[in-house]
C-alpha cells in the first residue's frame, strides 16, 4: 500500500538531496578553489552527477538493491525494467520509483564528494572514468553490503543515512586519489586562498538544508523516526559549527567563516550514520566530537601525511562519518535513542568491522581504478594548464567577466 504522506516526504527529500550536489556541494567546493578553476569544479559536479545517474539506471540500482547475495545484488532491475507505477518498495509505503530516485541522489553525491580531493589539477577525462568505475566498484557493493541485504546488513550494522556508505567510502578514496595524483604544484606553501568564501557559505547553507532530506528522508517514511533524525541532524550541525569556531578563535585569534561552515559539514557528516538512532543530547555531544576530531584530522592530513587532499574530503567527511558510525552504539543509550538489538560492545564491534572493511575496500579498489585511469586517459593536466587554470584550458570558459 502506498502512503501518500510518506511518498510526499520522500519525493521532497529527494529534491533536497539533489540540491546538496547541484548546486550546494558545487558552490561549497567552487568557492574554495582559485578563480581560474571555479568553472571546472562546477562542471565536474554536474558531470559526475549525470554519469552516476545514468549508471544507476543501467545497473547500479539493480546491483545494489536487487537480490540478496552477501556481496553484490543481481541484474533483475537493470535498466529499471521491473519498476512498475504502483508497487511499493518492499518494507516501505512509497513507490519503487521514488525509492530508486531517492537512492540515486545518494549515488550522485557520493562520488561528487571526492571531487574535493583532486580539484585544480586533474584531467576531465580522468574525472569521468574514475567516477564511473568508482560508483560501480566501490559505492554499489558497499551500498549492497549495508543497505541492500548484504553481509554487513546480515551482521546488523547500523548506518542510518550513510556515514559508512557515503562518507567513509568517499573520504578514504579521496585520500588515495589525491596521493596518486600528486599535490598541486604550489603545495603546500604557495597555495592561493579560497577565491570566494561567501560562495563556500552559500554552499554549506544549502548542504545543511539539503541534509534534512538526506537524513530525515532515510527514514523512508514521514513519522517519528524522520522527526528525530531531523532534530538530531540540526543540533549536531549547530553545535559543531560553534565548536569549530571556538577552536579557531582560541588557536588563531579569529573565528573565520570558512572555519565555521567547515564545522557545520563535519557535524553533519558525523551525525549522518546516527541520525535516526539517537536523541537530541547525543546529537549535541556528537557535534562537539565532530569538530574537535575533524579539526585535528584536517591539520594532520595537511601537515603530517602531507597529501594534498585539496578540500579536506578525508578530514571532514571520511573522519566525520567514521566517528559517527563508531560512537553511535554508545549514544543510543542516552535519551531519545533506539533500543539496540545486541549488547552495546557487540554493536560497536560490528560498526568497527564495517568501518575498517569498507575503508580498506575503498582504498584498494580506488587504487586499482586510479591506476587504470593513469594508464589509459592519464591523470594530470600539464603544468602550464594547471598554472593557467582549468576553466579556459579544459572547458573554454572564464569564470568572471565582471569588468565588461
Amino acid at each position: 500500500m502506498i502512503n501518500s504522506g510518506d511518498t510526499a516526504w520522500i519525493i521532497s527529500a529527494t529534491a533536497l538531496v539533489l540540491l546538496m550536489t547541484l548546486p550546494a556541494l558545487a558552490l561549497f567546493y567552487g568557492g574554495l578553489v582559485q578563480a581560474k578553476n571555479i568553472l571546472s569544479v562546477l562542471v565536474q559536479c554536474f558531470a559526475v552527477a549525470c554519469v552516476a545517474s545514468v549508471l544507476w539506471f543501467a545497473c547500479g540500482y539493480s546491483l545494489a538493491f536487487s537480490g540478496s547475495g552477501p556481496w553484490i545484488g543481481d541484474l533483475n532491475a537493470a535498466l529499471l525494467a521491473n519498476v512498475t507505477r504502483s508497487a511499493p518498495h518492499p518494507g516501505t509505503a512509497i513507490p519503487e520509483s521514488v525509492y530508486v530516485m531517492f537512492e540515486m541522489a545518494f549515488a550522485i553525491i557520493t562520488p561528487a564528494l571526492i571531487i574535493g580531493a583532486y580539484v585544480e589539477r586533474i584531467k576531465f577525462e580522468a574525472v569521468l572514468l574514475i567516477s564511473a568505475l568508482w560508483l560501480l566498484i566501490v559505492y554499489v557493493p558497499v551500498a549492497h553490503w549495508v543497505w541492500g541485504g548484504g553481509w554487513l546488513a546480515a551482521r546488523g550494522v547500523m548506518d542510518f543515512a550513510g556515514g559508512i556508505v557515503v562518507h567513509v567510502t568517499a573520504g578514504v578514496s579521496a585520500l588515495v586519489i589525491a596521493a596518486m595524483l600528486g599535490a598541486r604544484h604550489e603545495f603546500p606553501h604557495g597555495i592561493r586562498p579560497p577565491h570566494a568564501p561567501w560562495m563556500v557559505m552559500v554552499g554549506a547553507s544549502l548542504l545543511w538544508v539539503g541534509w534534512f532530506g538526506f537524513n530525515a528522508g532515510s527514514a523512508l517514511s514521514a513519522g517519528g523516526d524522520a522527526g528525530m533524525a531531523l532534530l538530531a541532524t540540526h543540533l549536531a550541525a549547530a553545535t559543531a559549527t560553534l565548536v569549530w569556531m571556538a577552536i579557531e578563535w582560541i588557536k588563531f585569534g579569529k573565528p573565520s567563516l570558512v572555519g565555521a561552515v567547515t564545522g557545520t559539514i563535519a557535524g553533519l557528516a558525523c551525525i549522518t550514520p546516527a541520525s535516526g538512532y539517537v536523541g537530541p543530547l547525543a546529537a549535541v555531544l556528537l557535534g562537539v566530537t565532530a569538530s574537535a576530531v575533524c579539526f585535528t584530522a584536517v591539520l594532520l592530513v595537511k601537515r603530517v601525511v602531507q597529501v594534498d587532499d585539496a578540500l579536506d574530503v578525508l578530514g571532514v567527511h571520511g573522519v566525520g562519518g567514521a566517528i559517527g558510525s563508531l560512537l553511535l552504539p554508545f549514544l543510543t543509550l542516552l535519551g531519545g535513542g533506539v533500543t539496540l538489538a545486541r549488547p552495546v560492545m557487540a554493536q560497536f564491534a560490528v560498526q568497527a568491522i564495517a568501518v575498517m572493511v569498507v575503508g580498506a575496500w575503498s582504498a584498494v579498489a580506488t587504487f586499482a581504478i586510479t591506476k587504470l585511469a593513469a594508464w589509459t586517459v592519464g591523470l594530470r593536466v600539464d603544468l602550464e594548464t594547471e598554472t593557467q587554470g582549468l576553466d579556459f584550458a579544459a572547458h573554454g570558459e572564464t569564470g568572471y567577466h565582471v569588468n565588461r
Partner: protein
Amino acid sequence: MKLIIAIIQPHRLDAVREHLTGIDIAGLTVTEVRGYGRQKGHTEIYRGAEYQIAFLPKIKLEIAVPDGRVDDVVQAITAGSRTGKIGDGKIFVLELEQALRVRTGETGDNAL
C-alpha cells in the same frame, strides 16, 4: 606639466579626493592595484593552512597638473593619505609633455 602618480591605502581615497577638490583639482584617475612594499602583506588562515597574501590592495591615483601646482597637490595627497603607519604609500612626479582634451581639442595647461 607634470603627471603625479600616488599609491595610497584604499580606505584613504575619499579623504584624498576631498583634499584635492579643496584645492580645486578636479580631474583624477583611480586604479585598483596591488602593492608590495615595506608593508609585507598579511597572512590569512583557512582550515589551519596559512596563506601568504604578499600583495595588498592599493589605490593608484594619476593626476595631471600644471608645473606650478605640483607642491600643492603633493601636500594635499599627503594630508589625505597619511595615517603614520607602514603602508601609507608613495607619491611620484613625472614630466608630462603634452595633454589634450578629447571633446574640445584643447591642449596644454588648458586641457588639464
